[in-house]
Structures are given as structure tokens and as C-alpha cells.
């Protein structure tokens, strides 16, 4: 393995990878970036690694920010990610990347510097979608929740004992925030465009259960509504929100939880296939360019990536899942320093968890692909069940409420394309039998807080591609 060779441009012929790479640059220094850097060193890479991150602090864990941190059990600045090994790297934290020169193999930074690379990993992740009206979003008391800084600010406000907290958007983040507020005894109103919480991720049937949970825990849940305006007092503090039905909610705190935006703007014009849905890459994490050609030296991992998955008809999936970020980063790192035949595909089965209103929610597979669902264990009415999603006669996903220990079995069904509806006997069979019902997902073209798994693109075997002109 070559060490650093100054100024050398590495050859990137397939099969030669790893032999002549001196400089690896990782843009994005959070979970995926850190795990990739560790993996590079574990694989024996001895060249230079430059880590570029827009946040000033070292990589930290985000899932606790909407859970343990908001209920006050863990301070917002103490969720630093444990390191798996020492990583010898140059850290450029607090300096966002602003551009990519594919031909010159350089990343441009906000401070004007250019960082050359032989291999690049793009792991810039997502950011919270802000409230669209900028002036209103600036009001004191209006938050998004993505960074530890966001969590610190929101925690301070919650500690002060606001009269009411408004949560805008009832996806997983919004629902977890509402849950934490209720645990702290705060009054909460949740406004959701869809008919129920979590509908984008889990569909209307399970969303109905989530709505019952919220109401049982004292949340003032308003479905089918949107926020139209935020109103401040003369000191610039939030005091009231206006809703699409003409109603108002008096609140001192509003958390905008309208899903995530992928951090791809810095790649505009670079020639990579990057856009609002992420950066397209192949199953081995190599980025595609705008012509659909795969690049040899640019890799993608984590929330910003979208890649075809063989278990799901080779559709492109964008996953906002912790486990995916880790696994994809490791695959990308391995492939960056491995010759062609030793490269591995990223075949991770989507999975995520959430804790809200005393219930542990776990999901495997791609629920939004589900046409129908059937409860195989437990009962929806008890808020304790396993529901299986079916797509074209096969099992495509499963979700458990307080039944997480069974999901490994259902993952096996997804991986083996087991028939839907499943007809075997199990423990804890629902008393009302097993009738599949429509999973009731909203039209994916409608804006929502985001489903955490986004299926984009067409299945190659469907052959129903139609030309859709770009909107002006």
C-alpha cells in the first residue's frame, strides 16, 4: 500500500484500486463519515484522510436528541459517538464544502481553499427542513431539531416551562418531540397535514394507532391541517400560530418537524447525479454522473445516498436510518480501497426504531411499498402488535409496536420474498383472524414530513416509464 505521494494523480483503472491512492477526502463528518474513516484505517489504508464537516464539533449521535435529551435525562452536548479505533486524519470541522471539481479532483471549501483527492466520499447527510417563511422562522421560540445546538436551544426553552408547545409535522421526529414534551408535563398541540401521525412512513392503518397513542397521552392532535403563519409579539417572541382551518393556537414554542432536506446543493453543476432526492449511486456506493455513468473515484454513503436495492426490485432507496448510515459507510470505505472483484454490494435491509409515548416502534423492510397489511401477532387495539406489509404477493416490510424481538424473523421473510399474506400459525394470534387490509399510504407525490424511506425511480421489470417534462 502506497503512502502519501504528493501531487500524484492516482490511476483509477478498475482492479487497481487501493494500490495507488494517496489522498482520501470525506465530506461530512457525522455518523457515516466517522464510521467510514475508521473502516478505512481498519482496512489498512495508510494515505491521508481529510474529514470535512460543516458542524464545529466532533461526530455525535442524533437519535437521543429527540428522546433522552429532550426529557432532560442526557445533556445535549454529551451524545458524542464512541470511536471504534483511533483515526489518523486531518479534521476540517466547521468548514462546509461548497463545490466539487470532478475533473480537477478537488473539493472547494467555504473559506476558499481547495482540497485535492484521489478518492472522495460524500456523506453530507440531511438537514432539517426549515419553516418556509424566513421572517417567522426567526422568531424567538421557533425551532427545528437536527443538531445538538438545536437540541440545546429547545431544551432550554422547555426547561423554562412554556404554556404550550406546537409541533408542526407528525413524522417520527415530530412525534418523539411531542412524546418528550408530554413526559415533561407540557401541553402539546401537534399539527399534521396527513390524516394521522406517521402516515408517510407506516401508512394510514398504523397511523391510526399512532393517533390513538398521542391522544391517550394528552396530545392535542390536529390532523388534516397545516400551519399557515407564525405570529410574534413586539419583542420578536412567538405567541401564536395560524392554521389552515382558520383556527389559532397560542404557543411559546413551535418545533418545525417537516422532514429533512438532503445536503446536495454544494454538488450543483458538478456533473454528479445529485438533487433534492440525494446523490444516486450503485449498489457498491459509487456515484453516478448526470449521464448515468458510474464514477470510479466518487463514493456516497448515509442519508444523502440513493441506491438501487435488489430486494426491492432494484428501485432506488433513500434511507434516513442510523443503521444504514453505518453499514453503507463501511461498504463504501471498503470499496474505496479494494480492487473490483473484492468490492461488496450494500444489501442492508432497511430498519429503524423509535421510542414514543412509552412504546418501542421497530420497522424492517420498506413499508411505503406495501399495498396491503395484515396483523400477524397481537392487536392494533392494544397498541402492541406486529403488522406485515405485502407488495405483489410477497412480504415487503413489517412493523412492531412493543414486539421488536420478533422482527428478525420477519426480516427473514422479506429477504426470502415470502408469500403475502403469510398463512402460518404463530403465538399471540389476533382474535379477529388475519384479513389483509389496504395499508393506506398517502399519494407519494403530495408533500409530507417524509417517510424515512423514499422509493424513487421505477422498477426495471415494470417497463412503465413515462416521459415527464420538468416543471418550469
Amino acid at each position, binding site marked *: 500500500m502506497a503512502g502519501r505521494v504528493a501531487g500524484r494523480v492516482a490511476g483509477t483503472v478498475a482492479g487497481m484500486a487501493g494500490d495507488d491512492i494517496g489522498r482520501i477526502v470525506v465530506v461530512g463528518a457525522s455518523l457515516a463519515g466517522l464510521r467510514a474513516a475508521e473502516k478505512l484505517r481498519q482496512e489498512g489504508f495508510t494515505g491521508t484522510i481529510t474529514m470535512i464537516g460543516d458542524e464545529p464539533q466532533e461526530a455525535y449521535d442524533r437519535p437521543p436528541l429527540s428522546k433522552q435529551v429532550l426529557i432532560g435525562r442526557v445533556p445535549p452536548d454529551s451524545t458524542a459517538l464512541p470511536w471504534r479505533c483511533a483515526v489518523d486524519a486531518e479534521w476540517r470541522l466547521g468548514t462546509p464544502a461548497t463545490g466539487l471539481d470532478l475533473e480537477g479532483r478537488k473539493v472547494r471549501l467555504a473559506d476558499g481553499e481547495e482540497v485535492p483527492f484521489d478518492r472522495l466520499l460524500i456523506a453530507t447527510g440531511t438537514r432539517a427542513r426549515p419553516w418556509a417563511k424566513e421572517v417567522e422562522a426567526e422568531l424567538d421560540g421557533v425551532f427545528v431539531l437536527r443538531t445538538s445546538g438545536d437540541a440545546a436551544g429547545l431544551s432550554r426553552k422547555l426547561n423554562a416551562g412554556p404554556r404550550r408547545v406546537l409541533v408542526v409535522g407528525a413524522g417520527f421526529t415530530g412525534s418523539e418531540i411531542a412524546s418528550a414534551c408530554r413526559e415533561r408535563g407540557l401541553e402539546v398541540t401537534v399539527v399534521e397535514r396527513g390524516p394521522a401521525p406517521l402516515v408517510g412512513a407506516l401508512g394510514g392503518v398504523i397511523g391510526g394507532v399512532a393517533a390513538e397513542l398521542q391522544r391517550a397521552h394528552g396530545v392535542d392532535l390536529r390532523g388534516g391541517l397545516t400551519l399557515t403563519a407564525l405570529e410574534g409579539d413586539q419583542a420578536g417572541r412567538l405567541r401564536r400560530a395560524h392554521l389552515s382551518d382558520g383556527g389559532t393556537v397560542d404557543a411559546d414554542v413551535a418545533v418545525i418537524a417537516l422532514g429533512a432536506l438532503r445536503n446536495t446543493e454544494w454538488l450543483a453543476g458538478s456533473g454528479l447525479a445529485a438533487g433534492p432526492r440525494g446523490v444516486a449511486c450503485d449498489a457498491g456506493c459509487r456515484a453516478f454522473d448526470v449521464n448515468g455513468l458510474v464514477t470510479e473515484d466518487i463514493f456516497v454513503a448515509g442519508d444523502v445516498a440513493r441506491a438501487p436495492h435488489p430486494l426491492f426490485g432494484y428501485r432506488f432507496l433513500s434511507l434516513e436510518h442510523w443503521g444504514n448510515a453505518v453499514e453503507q459507510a463501511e461498504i463504501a470505505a471498503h470499496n474505496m480501497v479494494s480492487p473490483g472483484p473484492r468490492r461488496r454490494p450494500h444489501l442492508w435491509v432497511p430498519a429503524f426504531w423509535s421510542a414514543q409515548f*412509552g412504546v418501542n416502534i421497530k420497522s424492517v423492510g420498506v413499508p411505503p411499498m406495501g399495498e396491503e397489511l395484515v396483523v*400477524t*401477532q*397481537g392487536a392494533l387495539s*392494544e397498541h*402492541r402488535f*406486529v403488522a406485515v406489509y405485502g407488495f405483489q404477493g410477497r412480504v415487503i416490510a413489517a412493523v412492531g409496536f*412493543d*414486539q421488536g*424481538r*420478533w422482527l*428478525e*424473523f420477519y426480516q*427473514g421473510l422479506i429477504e426470502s420474498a415470502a408469500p403475502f399474506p403469510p398463512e*402460518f*400459525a*404463530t*403465538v*399471540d394470534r389476533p382474535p379477529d383472524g388475519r384479513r389483509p387490509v389496504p395499508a393506506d399510504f398517502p399519494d407519494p407525490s403530495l408533500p409530507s414530513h417524509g417517510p424515512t424511506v423514499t422509493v424513487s425511480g421505477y422498477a426495471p421489470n415494470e417497463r412503465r416509464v413515462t416521459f415527464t417534462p420538468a416543471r418550469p
Partner: protein
Amino acid sequence: MSSDTLVRQILDYGNRADPYPLYAELRRTPVARQQDGVYAVGTYWEVQRLLHDPRISSDARNRDPRAGGPPLPQEDDRLPPSFIRLDPPEHDRLRRMVNRPFGPPHSPRRIHDMRGELSRIVTGLIDRFPGNGHVDIVDDLAYPFPVTVICKVLGVPHEDEPRFHRWAQAIVAGLDIKPGEDPEERIRVAQAARMELGSYLNDLIEEHRRAPGDDMFSALVTDTGPDGRLPAIDLVVTGVLLLIAGHETTVNLIANGMLTLLRNPVQLKRLREEPGLVVPLVEELLRFEPPVQFVPSRTCLDDIEVAGTVIPKGAPIWLFLAAGNRDPERFQRPDVFDPERRDNQHLGFGSGIHYCFGAPLARLEAQLALTELARRLGDPQLVTDPPPYRTNPVLRGPRHLPVTFADLMD
């Protein structure tokens, strides 16, 4: 050796000291049907999957008597099954209620806060080791330590130990599996002991209701959680389960641990010098010499295919945790005791919804006992190798572990 006699060999007391070659043989056939109708599974991935498979029941009432298998150790009809022998939703409800005063999320500190007290108990027991340098690790530490602890946790007066020790022995004897023996009398005695222990606990719990302390029984009779209050009969049955499990399994973990360390003096020396090593060391012990060797009490609810074999509905299925823990398909150099093993997802506590309820307590007890034994015994030596074993093939461990030592450190 034909695979249909393998399980008989494993049950044979003559093989108790080293069943691992038999487990290796068992793994050659991932699903081995025995002559008596039992399906034995010993490969890691198959065992692991079946522990998470909702088509597998823990409730013996789902057994098809025509499917064969040895008579299951029946629990007494007059007492309902404990949650270890139940499926959801009953299992989930009972376990959730019993967990409320025991662990997170409701009682995250119960075990943690006992660390100091547990340390003092270990120290006291080792202080009393005989001055002549001969000690039985089982009778002098591995047994009395967890019994003292489980009594404290539950709220059972320690001076009653001789009474319930007799019942516990009879109950555990009832769980024994001896090929070719008619177990009827043994099971009858066990059921009688269970009734007596139950009635003892019933009176005890009544006292806690009148004068509650900060133990689990007091919490369970006074506290009303989201599921309501645990019915008295379930509390008694659970009490029997926890008392038995709490002192018939950890004793093996500690005794197997000391035996393993004495057979691996390099690791014993390392533990003495780096006490922090005890955390991964106990995990490796749970893999290498698990205190519960197999789960002989599951039943298929449907015809299921496992590794190319169809196991029929109603058939008994035995999951060999100890064999899976030594599967070379999962663990590199599986027969080497390596406390620094990475990615050690052993099956020592089981997996799935029946994952050992007392795992955090058992871990802490084994960690404290082994650290102190390593630190305080000067030049400890095994007197006999192998030591005499208990008869039970499931709860496998030394009956006695005679050890000599040169001196006792402070």
C-alpha cells in the same frame, strides 16, 4: 455415532464433564430428529433464528402427545405456569409487570444500586474461607452468594434458606431429564415442593403487603402500574420462578467461571492485574460454558422448515445454546476461551422474548465474584479435574469445586 442417539449421550451423566465433542457431533446435522420424536438443533444460526421465530411456542399445552418426546416436566395443575412457560400476550404482560420493580425503564437503578452491598457479601464469604487453604468454591461462594442476593432482591428472609433450599432442590430435580427412567415419582415430589414453596411465599408476600420494604415482593404487592396489580397467584408462581432461577443458574456461572480460570492460568493472572477485563471475560464465559446448556421446552405451532428439514406441528424442539455457542460457522476458534473475543453475540442468556430476565443481576454477580476470587486467592489450584458435576444436563455445573490456595489477600 448415529445422530438419533446423540441426545441420549448428552443426557448421560457420564458425559456431563465434557459434552462439547457431542455438541460438535450434533452440529453436523443442523436439525436432528431423535428416535423419541425430539428435534434437536445445535447450530448457531438455526438456534438463534428459532429463538426469534413466532411459530415456536414455549407453552407445553401446544405439544401434540402423538409427536413423541419425553414427558415434559409438567407444572402442577393447581398452580398456573410461570411466564417462562407462556407465550404472548400472557408472557408479555406478566414479564412487563414483574420487570417494573426490577429494571429499566421504571426501575433503572435497582441492580446498579446493589453493587456496594453485593461486594460486601462476596468479601464476607471469602473472609470466611477456611484457614487450612482448602475451599469448595461451590458450597463456600458460588451457591451462598447468589442465594443471599436473590433473597435480598425479592425480600425473602435469609434465615429461611434451609427450608426453601430443600424445596428448590426437589423442584430442580423435577426438571432433570434422565433417559430410560420413569420420572413420575420425581415429578410428583417436585410438584409437592412447588406447592410448599408457593404456600411459604404466599404467607411471606402477605407480610410484605402489611409492612412493605424496598424489595421486589413489596413493590409487586403495593405498586399499581399501567397493567394493574399482579394477581396473588401469579405473584406466587413468579416468586417460585425467580427464586429458583436466581440461585440455580448463577451458581453454575460462577463455578464454571472459576473452573475455566483455573484451567487457563494466563487469563486468571491477567484478571488479577486488569480487573476491568472481567466484563468481556464474563461474556466469553457465557459463550464458553453457559449455565443453561439447552432449552428443552419448545413446540412448533406449524410445520416449519429449518435447514432443509420440516419439523411438524406439535413436535418438541430442543435448542442447544451451548452447542450454538461453539459453532465454528459463527465463532472463530470456538473451543478457545478468549476474553478479548470481539463481536461475542453468544446465546448464553438465550435470545428473543424469553431472554434471561435476571441477566443484569447474573452478570454483576459473576463479575464481582470472579474479580474477587482472582484478586484474593494466592496460588489457587484445582484439586480434581474434572470436578464432580451436578446431575442436571440443562443446568450444568460442578456440584463441588475443591480448590487449594496458599494464602488469602486482604
